[in-house]
C-alpha cells in the first residue's frame, strides 16, 4: 500500500474509531432505558425522544449559536417526554409498551414538524478532544477525536453500575422494579419512583439525540436516527440490565457498524450485506446461547411487563 493510505490497518482502526463515534447515542439511550427498566417500566418511546432531542439540540444551537445550550435543551425535552410517559403509565390499565410506541411516533412526528426550518441551516458542533494528537498519522488522529459526551457516557455507565448496588437511590429503584408490593410495604410510592426513573431515562435519550445532530453525523435530517433508539432499547435486554454491559454492547454495535464500510474501503467487497447484518447476527447468537425455557432472563426486574 502506498504512503497516503493505511491499507489493511484501516479495518481495526475504523472499528475502533467507529466504536467511539457511533456508539455514543447507543450508550445514552441504553443507560436511560436501563434506569427506566430497572424501576419496572419499559419506555419504547426513546426512539422518538432521540429524534426529538436531535431536532431540539440542533434548533437551539442554530438559534443561540451555542451547542451546549442545545444539549441542555435536548435533555429538558427528553425529560418532558419521559415524565409524560411516566405520568400516563401510572393509571390503571395503561400498557407501558403501547404508550411507548405511541410516544415514539409522536416524538418523531413532532420533531419533523418543528424541524422543518432547520434542515438547511448549519449549527455549531460539540467540541472533540484530540486524544490522537500523539500520533502523526492523520487517520489515527481522526479516529481518536473523542467527543466529551462519549467520555461522560463511559463515566456514567460506571457510576450507574456502582450506584445501583451501593446507593440508597439505586436500591430504591431496584426494589420498585422487583416488587411493587415490597416497595409499598417499605413506604415507597412505586409510581413516583418510576416517574422519576422514566424522566431521567428520557433526559439521557435526549442527550443521545443531541450527539447525533451536533457531532456525528452532525446535521439535522429526518432520517438521522434510522432506528438507533429502538436498537438501544434492545441492547438493554442484551446487556441484562447492567450499565457496564450497556456500555460494552454499545461499543460492540458501534464497532460492528463500522465494519461493513471499512472492509469495502480496503477492497473486500463481496457480501457487504452480510457484514452489515453482523451486529444483529451476533445479538441473535448471544441471545440464543444464554436463554433458557425453564427460567426467566437473569437480571430481569420482576415487575417488567415482558418478563411477568
Amino acid at each position: 500500500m502506498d504512503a497516503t493510505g493505511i491499507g489493511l490497518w484501516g479495518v481495526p482502526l475504523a472499528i475502533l474509531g467507529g466504536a467511539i463515534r457511533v456508539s455514543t447515542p447507543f450508550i445514552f439511550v441504553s443507560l436511560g432505558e436501563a434506569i427506566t427498566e430497572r424501576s419496572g417500566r419499559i419506555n419504547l418511546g426513546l426512539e422518538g425522544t432521540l429524534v426529538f432531542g436531535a431536532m431540539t439540540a440542533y434548533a437551539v444551537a442554530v438559534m443561540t449559536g451555542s451547542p451546549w445550550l442545545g444539549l441542555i435543551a435536548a435533555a429538558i425535552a427528553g425529560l418532558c417526554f419521559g415524565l409524560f410517559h411516566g405520568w400516563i403509565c401510572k393509571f390503571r390499565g395503561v400498557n407501558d409498551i403501547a404508550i411507548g410506541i405511541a410516544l415514539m411516533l409522536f416524538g418523531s412526528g413532532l420533531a419533523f414538524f418543528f424541524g422543518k426550518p432547520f434542515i438547511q441551516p448549519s449549527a455549531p458542533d460539540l467540541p472533540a478532544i484530540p486524544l490522537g494528537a500523539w500520533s502523526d498519522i492523520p487517520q489515527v488522529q481522526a479516529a481518536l477525536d473523542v467527543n466529551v459526551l462519549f467520555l461522560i457516557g463511559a463515566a456514567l455507565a460506571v457510576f450507574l453500575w456502582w450506584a445501583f448496588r451501593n446507593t440508597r437511590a439505586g436500591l430504591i429503584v431496584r426494589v420498585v422494579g422487583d416488587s411493587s408490593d415490597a416497595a409499598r410495604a417499605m413506604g415507597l410510592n412505586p409510581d413516583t419512583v418510576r416517574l422519576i426513573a422514566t424522566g431521567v431515562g428520557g433526559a439521557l435519550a435526549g442527550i443521545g439525540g443531541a450527539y447525533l445532530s451536533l457531532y456525528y453525523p452532525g446535521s439535522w435530517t429526518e432520517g438521522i436516527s434510522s432506528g438507533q433508539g429502538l436498537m438501544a432499547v434492545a441492547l438493554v435486554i442484551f446487556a441484562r440490565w447492567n450499565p457496564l454491559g450497556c456500555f460494552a454492547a454499545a461499543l460492540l454495535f458501534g464497532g460492528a457498524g463500522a465494519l461493513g464500510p471499512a472492509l469495502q474501503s480496503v477492497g473486500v467487497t463481496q457480501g457487504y450485506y452480510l457484514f452489515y447484518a453482523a451486529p444483529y447476527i451476533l445479538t441473535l447468537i448471544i441471545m440464543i446461547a444464554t436463554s433458557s425455557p425453564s427460567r426467566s432472563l437473569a437480571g430481569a426486574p420482576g415487575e417488567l411487563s415482558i418478563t411477568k
Partner: protein
Amino acid sequence: MTDRFMLSRRQLLKTSAAGAALGLASVSFPITRAFAAATTVGFIYVGPKDDYGYNQAHAEGAAALKGMEGISIVEEENVPETVDVQKTMESMINLDGASLIFPTSFGYFDPHMLAMCAKFPDVQFRHCGGMWNKDKHPMNAGSYFGYIGMGQYLNGVVAGHTSKTKKLGFIAAKPIPQVLLNINSFLLGARSVDPTITCQVIFTGEWSLAVKEAEATNALVDQGIDVVTCHVDSPKVVVETAAGRGAFVCGYHANQSPLAPEKYLTGAEWNWAKVYKMFVDDLVAGTPLPNFTRGGLADGFVKMSPLGPAVSEPARKQFDATLAEMTKGGFSVIKGPLKSNKGAVVASEGQAFTETAIELESMDYLVEGVVGSTA
C-alpha cells in the same frame, strides 16, 4: 377509578360534532381554491423537500411553476411508498382539483399510481423513472427521466484533475443500473484525465442512512482518497463529513456548495424545472402530454453546479470542452475497448453507447478501475 376516562354520551356527541364541523371547514376551503386557479398540479415527495438532494431537486422544479399564469401547485412531502400515496393522490384530485400529478419517488409507480390511473381516467399522472410501458400501462400515465450519468462524467473530469493521490471515492446506495452507470461515468471521466486513477466504491444498502454514510466517508478518507462523490438520497452528510476531513467533494441531485464552499468542486444536478414547465405548457395548450420523456445535458434536463474555487485552470478548460462536446449530442461515456473490473469485455473496439442506448439501462458491471463489487 376507571370512569374518569369513560366519555359520557353527551361529551362524545359534542366532540364528534366539533370534529365534523372542522372537517367540513377544511373541505370547503380547497374547493373554492380549485375554482380560482385554472389548473392545479400536484407534487408528491418521499422525503423532506429541503434535503439538499433528490427531493429538493424536484421541489425546485415545482417552485419554478409558481410564477406561471393560471397555475397553482399543491405539494406533499414525506409520503411513504405505501397505500398512503394513494390517499395523497386522491385528496389532491378530489379536494384540490389537481389535473396533473407528479409522484416523484420510484416506489410510487406500481401498484399505487397505476391504481389511481384506473380510478381517475381524466387525470394525468407522470412518474419520475423509466417504468412506463405502452403495452402494459394506461395512456394517462407516463414516465420522465434524465441522463445524469453525463454529469457524473464531468464530475469525474474535475475530480481527476483535483486528486493528488489518484484515488477517488464513491458512496452508493444500491447496485442498480442507474447507480452503476453513475459510478462508471465518474471513473471514466477521471480516467480521461489520467488513466491510472482508481475509484473505490462503498455501498450502504439503503437510500438514506446518515450514520453509515458518514462511516463510509471516513473509511474512504482513511484510505487516502481525496475526492468523494455519492449517489444517495441526501448527500448532505457525505459532503459535510468529507469536507470536515479535508477531502474534496462532487455533488449530486442538487447544489450542495453552501455546505462546503471551499471543498465543493462541482456537481451533477437535475433541472426538473425545464421538464415540469414542458408538461404544464402542453396541458395548458390542450395538446396531449408525452408518455415517455427523457433528456440529458443537451436537452437541459440535467445541469452542472458552478465550479468551485478549488478547481484548477486545466480542469476548468477540459470541463468546458467536454461539456461543449456533450451539448452537441452523440457523446458516449461507455465506449470500447472497455472491460469490467472482473475482466469481461463490456464494449469491444469501435463499439460505443450513447446516453440513449437501451443497453445502459440493464448495466450490471463496474468498469476496470472501479474497486468494488455489485453483490
